[in-house]
């Protein structure tokens, strides 16, 4: 059952048409929302959150109408905005509990959940400190915590790894993966960082110029036409390229010592084939694996 359905949506800001006749079904699970700037992602998110009065069409999210039941929708969802945001003058526990109360939780439940959620998000140690003293990584986590506190059925994460250093990004992605798998929460991640999406999301929706360019399961989208391999040699080797072509293998691209090859259909033992060819041509293979289309390629193909 889809988490949200948008039908023939048209949204105008003054004279500008942001999206026109857009229809999309958002499936359950962890979904990546991709698209170039100006593709209409923001408009789609605003519409799903119930902030927009459509010029035409409409939709529903978790069974609630996006045009008329905005407040009820916002009770069931959690939003982690892209920008830095917090309530001034509070420590983490107070802030998280306050967010819970604003969502309708009784004060006691909100306080209890605040502690639980802060611990889950890795802020256990710093929970009594004023948020204004937090580092970027901690600020991102508290944004996530305030989105989770009231037990939403759907989480919107807008550039969740913004400003995080590699360790922080790693932990945030791990959190996102954990919360979106097996906990009964649907997650929509909007990000320009495609490896982040690859790591956390099972499905993607790619938008372009106010429409859906492509949509589907990441695994399926990444399948290549035919059997493709990426081979890393120690040094670029023209001899190797010639030798493989002689065996019916096509060289699709070459980038330094990295080759992308298309093997004949029905190749059973790719390893043998590659090692033999390398031996014959005097090249040394340092690694090979099945090539999948990268999410970046999928994206670029969809939007160009």
């Amino acid at each position, binding site marked *: 059952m889809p988490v949200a359905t948008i039908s023939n949506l048209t949204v105008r800001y003054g004279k500008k048409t942001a999206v026109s006749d857009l229809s999309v079904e958002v499936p359950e699970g962890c979904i990546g929302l991709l698209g170039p*700037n*100006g593709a209409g*992602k*923001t*408009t789609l*998110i*605003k519409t799903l*959150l119930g*902030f927009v009065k459509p010029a035409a069409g409409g939709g529903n999210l978790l069974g609630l109408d996006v045009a008329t039941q905005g*407040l*009820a929708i*916002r*009770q069931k*969802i*959690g*939003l982690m*905005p*892209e*920008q*830095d*945001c*917090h*309530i*001034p*003058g509070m420590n983490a526990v107070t802030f998280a509990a*306050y*967010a819970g*109360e*604003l*969502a*309708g*939780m*009784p004060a006691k*439940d909100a306080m209890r*959940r605040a502690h*639980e*959620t802060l*611990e*889950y998000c890795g802020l256990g140690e710093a929970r009594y400190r004023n948020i*204004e003293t937090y580092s970027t990584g901690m600020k991102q986590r508290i944004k996530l915590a*305030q*989105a*989770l*506190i*009231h*037990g939403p059925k759907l989480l919107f994460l*807008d550039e969740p790894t913004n400003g995080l250093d590699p360790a922080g990004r790693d932990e945030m992605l791990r959190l996102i993966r*954990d*919360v979106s798998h097996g*906990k*009964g*929460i649907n997650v929509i991640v909007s990000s320009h960082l495609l490896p982040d999406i690859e790591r956390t999301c099972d499905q993607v929706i790619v938008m372009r110029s106010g429409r859906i360019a492509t949509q589907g399961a990441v695994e399926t989208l990444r399948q290549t036409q035919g059997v493709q391999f990426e081979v890393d040699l120690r040094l670029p080797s023209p001899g190797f390229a010639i030798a493989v072509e002689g065996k019916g293998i096509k060289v699709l691209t070459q980038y330094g010592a990295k080759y992308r090859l298309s093997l004949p259909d029905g190749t059973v033992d790719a390893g043998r084939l590659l090692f033999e060819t390398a031996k014959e041509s005097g090249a040394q293979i340092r690694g090979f694996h099945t090539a999948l289309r990268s999410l970046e390629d999928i994206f670029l193909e969809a939007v160009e």
Partner: protein
Amino acid sequence: MSEMSGHTPPGALDFIVAGDTPTAGAPIADLSYRNYDGPLHTRVARWWIVSLASLRLAVKKKGFWIAAAISILPYLIILLQLYLQSGTPVPAGANPLMDLTVGQRFASQFFQALGFQMFFLFIITLLVGSGVIAADNQSNALLVYLSKPLTKGDYLLGKWMGVFLILFGVAFIPGTILYVFCLLSYYSEGFLKNEPWLFARMTLAAATPAVIHASLITGFSAWSKSPRVAGALYAGLYFIGNIVVGATWAIRHRGNLGEGVLERHLSVEGVINGLAQNLYGVVQKLPTYNQRTNTMERLSIDPPSMMVMLLMAAAFVVVGVGAARMRIRAVEIVKG
């Protein structure tokens, strides 16, 4: 088990092994994320949660308590004056601060107390109100608020009420205490009989500065990213307003207190004062020197026109709240 010496109390492990304890099936607790399926509809209004948070923040400020404490002093002084006055009879007209007119005797005291409080109410407004929305602007707090089931109207009402309740409380609570004291002490002297509506008047008069200050400071605060700037601007409006109005009146009426009463009351402070005068029904009696007859006279000064005062107050409220509303409406939650 019970044969083992010392450490394990006999039967303790039996209890656990028997398998009927809460942790029997899973000795290691699962501390990962749990879903929340509890109630999500509070019985209180949504805006009240916002107000409560504002109030909590306000009472943490030391400055607030200091200003509030000082602003209560006039009530204590009035209490003392009334006590002394009722004990020893005073010739009529001797003490300009004491108005013994029936029907005005106590009202005038409450009015004076409020008058003394004005400055401190203004200070408290700055302390509590200048950051009420400005601090949120600085930290993008509205993104958090509006992602919850809270309308922009709820937010504004909550913030406004936060300031209003503080100011109202600072005027109303000591006023009530004074009222109860007077009721108990002067009932026999016609306290209730001569001034039946005094409690209602006191309540409305306490609400007046609260409503006007709350509306204006909320407007200023909403348009600023810095609490200090918002406070400074409002202070500027307040004081400059007083100076301009006062100077204009002085020039036009050459310091004659009997004239130009309305003109004197055209600033923010003036409007609050004027409304309070009308609510308490106070006619000021000031001793002046009459140059013609060469005697001291008592000049009766009526309060300024209620209509004009109300209109101006309404204008302040509409402008303040309207400005805040305009600014809040412009906030976008998700930016492209």
